[in-house]
């Protein structure tokens, strides 16, 4: 589905990604874990075309994404649920969702878009209940649902999540992650960037560990959970044994 080779990217000459190679197969949930500032968000932005990579290759379903505009990338079936949700707080839930189908709002697509609304409301009945409310009045968990729903309005086959658990209560995190797992069952392929390694590795098939702009480890979720470095750095284990 997605193949990234030797991706070099950053901001205004400051190189953040130093040659990333990774892939996501169709139907997989792949997690990228790593500390603050490791480059996780930069990777998602570079795949989504928000940042223009300096070097390397990004292929989605075989097409080169490097020189594509964001709307073309959406057209290829790629969607990003950004960190911090980035909703429009003074627009209603329905209006926010509608913006997710912006690139397809031409004549004749209305029926299709209505179907998208129906399927998002089926996935998140809460959003249907609150479709007339301002997005800013929703709880954190509901806002995350809205951000996910908005991404789904573009009928993506490949969805990227940037820190979906950020700022949410543990119970709500569980709910959001269950929904992500549910999306996979509906045929979506998923790439999640997440600091909450323990939570995300429970639903992911595979994962990569990122450290200062490089991927230093890869493996199945079970392998990563067993890896001592991952346990020390991201799962908070073994500190006592190190102190000894």
């Amino acid at each position, binding site marked *: 589905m997605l193949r990234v080779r030797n991706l070099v990217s950053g901001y205004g000459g400051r190189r953040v990604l130093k040659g990333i190679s990774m*892939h996501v197969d169709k139907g997989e949930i792949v997690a990228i874990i790593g500390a603050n500032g490791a480059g996780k968000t930069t990777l998602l932005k570079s795949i989504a075309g928000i940042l223009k990579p300096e070097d390397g290759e990004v292929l989605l379903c075989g097409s080169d994404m490097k020189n594509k505009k964001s709307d073309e990338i959406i057209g290829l079936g790629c969607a990003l649920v950004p960190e911090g949700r980035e909703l429009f707080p003074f627009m209603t839930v329905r209006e926010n969702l509608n913006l997710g189908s912006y690139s397809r709002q031409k004549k004749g697509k209305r029926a299709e878009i209505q179907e998208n609304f129906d399927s998002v409301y089926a996935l998140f009945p809460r959003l249907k209940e609150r479709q007339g409310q301002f997005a800013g009045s929703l709880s954190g968990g509901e806002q995350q649902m809205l951000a996910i729903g908005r991404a789904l309005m573009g009928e993506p086959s490949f969805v990227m999540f940037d820190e979906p658990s950020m700022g949410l209560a543990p119970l709500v995190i569980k709910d959001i992650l269950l929904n992500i797992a549910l999306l996979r069952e509906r045929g979506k392929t998923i790439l999640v960037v997440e600091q909450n390694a323990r939570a995300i590795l429970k639903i992911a098939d595979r994962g990569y560990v990122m450290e200062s702009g490089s991927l230093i480890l*890869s493996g199945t979720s079970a392998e990563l959970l067993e*890896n001592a470095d991952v346990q020390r750095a991201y799962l908070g284990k073994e500190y006592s044994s190190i102190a000894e």
Partner: protein
Amino acid sequence: MIYDPANECLSRANLEQLQIERLQATLFRARQNVGFYRKALAAENVEIESVRSVADLRKLPFTTKEDLIQNYPYGMFALPLHDVVRLHSTSGTTGKPIVVGYTHNDIQIWTQLVARVLSAAGVSNRDFAQISFHYGQTTAGMGFHYGAERIGASVIPLSGESIGRQIMVMRDYRTSALIGTPSYAMHLSCALKEQNVPLSELALRVGIFGAESWSEKMRSEIEKNLGIKAFDNYGMTELIGPGVSFECEKRNGLHVNEDHFLIEVIDPVTLDPVGIGTEGELVFTTLTREACPLVRYRTGDLASIIPGTCECGRTSVRMSRLSGRTDDMIIVDGTNIFPAQIEQVILGIEGVRPYFRIVLDRLDDGTDTIVVQVEASPDFPSLDRLGQVEKLRSGLESRLGEALGLKLTVSLVEPKTLNSPDGKKYRCIVDNRSK
């Protein structure tokens, strides 16, 4: 049967993607955590970021056996020792072995790789697998044990039990798969004949042999004598143990587990890569080892890459069966021996000169014998006194046996019989085993 079709039959494009991802991560961890690699990369002025494809491997420095010996015991480890759950080691060349560590994940992956080896030979959960490899510091016994359990075979860990007991178990427990060295298989078949145990009383059907090189002639002999199909496999402790490459049912070369090991074949003199089909020294890079990653490890084993793909469905590259060694290492009953080891022992003993010859023979029952002929020193005053000569000889025999870790015979020869007048040594290894 293919144990892990998702990974063993990956398309070449997907396999290559996996390889480059794993290679880049391995290099990063090797540079960050292993002082040897940090220095080696700096000395060669190699930026690991410049490794953008598997072909770029050529830019990286080699790792040699000597490097591993110099970093004895833990210098090559990429993780703190409390993350290591097992330590294996090689038999050791100059007294110091090579120590190899395994994390929990290393053991899991190793187990899967050996399961591939056994599945490819047709071993399944219906088999009784008798393991005659020694269970000890070397990797073969434990490696096969875990792999056979993984595929659900009933594992009989017989290790170094006496031949009588091996035969009794083989007959009574209905052993169907024999795992050990090929020379032990020969030994076993002769013992069966001696004890008049007909093949019809046995349930044996398949053998998985390794840890030493063996000819096609030996294979057909084993197959005939034991009534089995015999499969070759390859591995070495430094890399992981058994599980690096193996024969499938086509038995046309050994499939390399390329999702875990990158294979290169180089000219041992120029160190340049040789083409497909050309024989050279095997060089491996580990892709998933956590405790002891190795970059471009020169194995000293000679083989070639077989062109084309296999009909079995696996997409991995195949290597030929081993044809020899680049150095003077000899393998006797699965134990690695270097003439330098013998030299070192002899040098410390009065009454002999450091000239010797190793004579290897294989008895009809498949047992290897090793005779070390050592030149007596001309100033040894009492060469005519039998008692003293025998004392010197038997002392040397036990010292050498201890150093090499196997049984051998020492015979003393007259001075100046093993070195030519110009001081050059005669050929110090005479291997009659393949004759």
